[in-house]
């Protein structure tokens, strides 16, 4: 997962964890909000992605007491943040290129 482009669900999960640590259900809700309901991750997909990101060291998990019961919370590691920034730079480049190409075609 070091050089390959990141898939949309993974990118959204990383973006969800970029501002603050979140638990599983909060990530689901946040990804849905970010895409305005267009993308609704299933629990199976979410945990498959989290498992992979944990294995690759992009995110880490810790236990947080939340009211009556504890919850496993996920946050970005420095490696995950760096890779996310690289991916955003790549996407910006593509967006700029696309804008230029489309603008040159229209004129």
């Amino acid at each position: 997962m070091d050089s390959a482009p990141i898939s949309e669900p993974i990118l959204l999960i990383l973006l969800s964890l970029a501002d603050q640590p979140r638990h599983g259900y909060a990530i689901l809700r946040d990804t849905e909000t970010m895409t305005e309901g267009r993308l609704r991750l299933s629990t199976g997909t979410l945990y498959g992605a989290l498992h992979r990101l944990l294995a690759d060291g992009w995110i880490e998990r810790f236990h947080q007491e939340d009211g009556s019961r504890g919850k496993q919370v996920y946050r970005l590691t420095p490696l995950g943040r760096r890779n996310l920034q690289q991916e955003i730079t790549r996407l910006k480049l593509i967006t700029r290129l696309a804008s230029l190409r489309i603008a040159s075609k229209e004129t």
Partner: protein
Amino acid sequence: MLLLYHFLVHLYPATYRGEYGEEMLAVLSEVLTENQKKGVMARIVSAVCEIAGLLCGALREHIRNIAGSIRVEKSFSRRVTMRSDFRFPKTTVTLMALVLLAVFLAIEKGKDIQASIAYANPQVGPIHPTQQLALLPTLLLVLAFACLMGAFGWAMLFALRRTGSQRLSNVDVSSRPGCGTSLSI
């Protein structure tokens, strides 16, 4: 519905289930609670998505486990090494030898039959509609046989993986006389 999700989570590999199972069920429970406020159609769509997600996830993790268990070392020797959590039982060698022997015997028997009825095969003529109809059950039989063999192969792989990993995980190193801490698997 939660019972169904519980069953589907049980389809995941044991290690994965141990790590995420409880958490996944908690999330699924929250999703169910949230869906109660929505309409019937939205609830059905959500349930279908969750079921498909869990089934695909379980399949993906099993495939990843099997694929990840055998790792080919990219060295000059091209040795095939296996991870410590996966071992074939010793009976596999015997079973494979028996299968190989059966294949050789079948080939020899086939040669004998061919020799005994040489030139006695009837000439194949045009296929009549009645013969075409007879082909359908044969094709179905072949398809059923292929499915059966596939299921048997999958069951064998599953059983081998289970017996191998469970036996290793049940090894109690400390209780064995003469086994020190230097035992490595």
